[in-house]
């Protein structure tokens, strides 16, 4: 099927790649069907695009590329909701807030997106607020870690 995207024009996608976020993202609960599309070869950035609304697309990134010691535990509830059986099926992304320059851009480590790539379920989870998981973590380390 063909979908409109926020930055990449019209794109042909395979329906089996569609991810279901049953609760949407926080504040945007009405959008539940997304797809991951690569944005750039040189940077670890991906577009999480709504398949129903071209305007709804988030730039997301691997949090580990920016903070190497980024780890958290998933609750029983999250494991159940996402039907996670194997750790290897899980991908974690963080929402990027892009500003005019990469230096000013930030990545949200407080509320990562956890995706079960096997079952195609995703959820934005909220970590216990702590200094280790900032809502606006600066992206300035991008260039060094992108390679």
């Amino acid at each position, binding site marked *: 099927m063909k979908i409109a995207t*926020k*930055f990449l024009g019209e794109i042909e996608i395979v329906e089996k790649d569609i991810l279901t976020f049953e609760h949407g*993202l*926080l*504040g*945007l609960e009405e959008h539940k069907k997304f797809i991951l599309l690569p*944005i*750039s070869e*040189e*940077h670890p*950035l991906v577009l999480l695009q709504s398949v129903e609304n071209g305007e*709804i*697309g*988030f*730039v997301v990134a691997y949090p580990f590329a920016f903070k190497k010691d980024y780890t958290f535990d998933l*609750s*029983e*509830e999250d494991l159940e909701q996402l039907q996670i059986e194997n750790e290897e099926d899980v991908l974690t992304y963080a*929402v*990027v*807030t*892009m500003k*005019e*320059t*990469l230096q000013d*851009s930030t990545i*949200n480590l*407080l*509320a990562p997106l956890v995706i079960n790539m096997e079952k195609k379920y995703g959820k*934005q989870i*909220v970590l*216990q*607020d702590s200094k280790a998981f900032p*809502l*606006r973590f600066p992206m300035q380390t991008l*260039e060094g870690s992108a390679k």
Partner: protein
Amino acid sequence: MLVLSRKKDESIMVGDHIEIKILAVEGEQIKLGIVAPKTVKVHRSEVFEAIQAQNKEALSTSPIFLEQLKKK
């Protein structure tokens, strides 16, 4: 909304497993103790509101950023 009055060291039960206790009242500030199973997530409401706002801000990214990437 259910409204209950409580004094210091008194508590309320939410369901069978969640206890919320008033630990201290200092002027405008109230210190709460929350005893809940690990599966129950407890967050300050502002945290949720801040994340909602951040998601919306992230959504307003303009395609200009793609040009920025290419320049690098």
